[in-house]
């Protein structure tokens, strides 16, 4: 690790530049993994339905937030949906997966009861509206990742 120590001008204070680099592995869990595999292999967006409250969760998950019941009924939802909200990020940040400005959106997919957090693309920010109909654009090379969906674009 390269470190630099600088003395602040006009002050007897030394500033140490450090960085903590800690690799980590994160399990998507059994249900999250199947969701990602379906995205990769079949370009299908899968949810799970709660038998008690009937809510269809996207992305699929194993436990209902309200009922605490285990969810094992799989449901395919549409790759088309409606924009619930969006945000246009003009800031350049190292964490962003695509070039800026990046447009975030929450999309209510047809057949789902929760919103899907992702990005919007192929759209003029000026033309964007809450309520706009959009559809998923999948990447050609998919690897079992939320970014296997490139973004959502307006329906023609």
């Amino acid at each position, binding site marked *: 690790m390269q470190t630099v120590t600088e003395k602040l001008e006009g002050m007897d*204070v030394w500033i140490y530049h450090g960085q903590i680099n800690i690799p980590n592995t994160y399990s998507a869990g059994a249900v999250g993994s199947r969701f990602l595999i379906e995205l990769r292999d079949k370009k299908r967006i899968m949810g799970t339905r709660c038998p008690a409250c009937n809510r269809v969760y996207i992305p699929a998950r194993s436990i209902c937030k309200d009922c605490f019941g285990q969810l094992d009924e799989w449901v395919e939802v549409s790759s088309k949906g409606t924009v619930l*909200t969006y945000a246009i990020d003009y800031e350049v940040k190292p964490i962003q997966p695509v070039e800026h400005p990046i447009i975030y959106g929450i999309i209510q997919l047809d057949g789902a009861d929760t*919103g899907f*957090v992702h990005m919007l693309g192929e759209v003029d920010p000026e033309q964007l509206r809450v309520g706009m109909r959009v559809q998923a654009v999948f990447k050609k090379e998919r690897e079992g990742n939320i970014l296997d969906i490139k973004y959502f674009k307006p329906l023609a």
Partner: protein
Amino acid sequence: MAERVGIIAVAQTKYHPNRTDVNEEELAYEAIKQVLEETGLTLSDMDSAVTCSQDFLDGRTISSMNIQHVVGAHLGHEDNISEDGINAVYAAMGQILSGHQHIVLVEAHTKESQGDKSLIENAAFDAIFMRQLGLDFTSAAALQARRYMYKYGITAEQCAKVVVRNHANAKNNPFAQEPMDISVDDVLGSKMLISPIRLLDTKPISDGACAMILAPEGKVKKLTRKPVWILGASNCYETHYLGDRDLADCDALVKAAQKAYNMAGITNPLRQIDVAEISTEYSYQEPLWLEGLGFCDQGEGGKLVDSRATKMGGKLPVNPSGGVLPGNPNGVAGMARVAEAVLQLRGEAGDRQVKGAKVALTHGYTGICGQHQAVMILGNM
């Protein structure tokens, strides 16, 4: 509550964009020293300490490990909270009500200037489904702001008015970081960061610390002539995945407020509460949180901030201190609201004093789009 819990002393550092002149323990010491001097107590009089700091913001694992000697926890009891400091006050209250701890020191500190706020916030999102999108708290807040403004017709002008009023109030607050002389047009003309949020809709990077001493009713009267009592307190979590909730509403805050009101015997918040200090890192949050707190109906927050009610001299002055927008660090912000309310209820708030304030509401939140909400009601009777 079985026995009442009182706050006998509060202190804040002046909030600052970059306290390179001190490290974390020295920053905490500044606030702690003041509450000890005010009460004449020493660290050895403390039965326990509750501290609040966030590991990523502090840049170290288990961020309370380097401040033990300034909170009296060298060979003593300490618990650490990683949410907002208002939850540290809550935890201290619980310790006292247990009967096992009596005089408790509460401390929160954050030096936002030392880390990369956007990177740290990004790491708060779940690793599989949201973090990889590159979201941070401001981009998530922009999603919430747009949804709220769309659903209830809240305007950018109404949000800008919140900024202008908070900055104007902050001029009367000696602890305020950057009170600005600004107009609605200045806010609406400031740089667009993440549409619909502009630069002046947010707070600047901030460093600071806050400290308090709490004690049970039996001991309070020997320690201060101006006790302030915790009348009610609660907190509530929302789900983490942003798509699971309608971001235009704040159900967790509604629940936290209702529980705190029940404890405090408040049935009509607008009539029974004299002053409110609420945490708003983004301007749209003030009308939204005011709805959640029951000061108006759902969707009516814009009208409330348009009215005279929330100004100094109004029916419910909101943030006489200027609140978080002129600059308060995450983690300290909500606890600073409690400290400000204590000054109000002791009649020691100087130029920002709400005359005759007897009951105050304080609010803090942690995380993405107000995922964790906390409400504390204080009184001086």
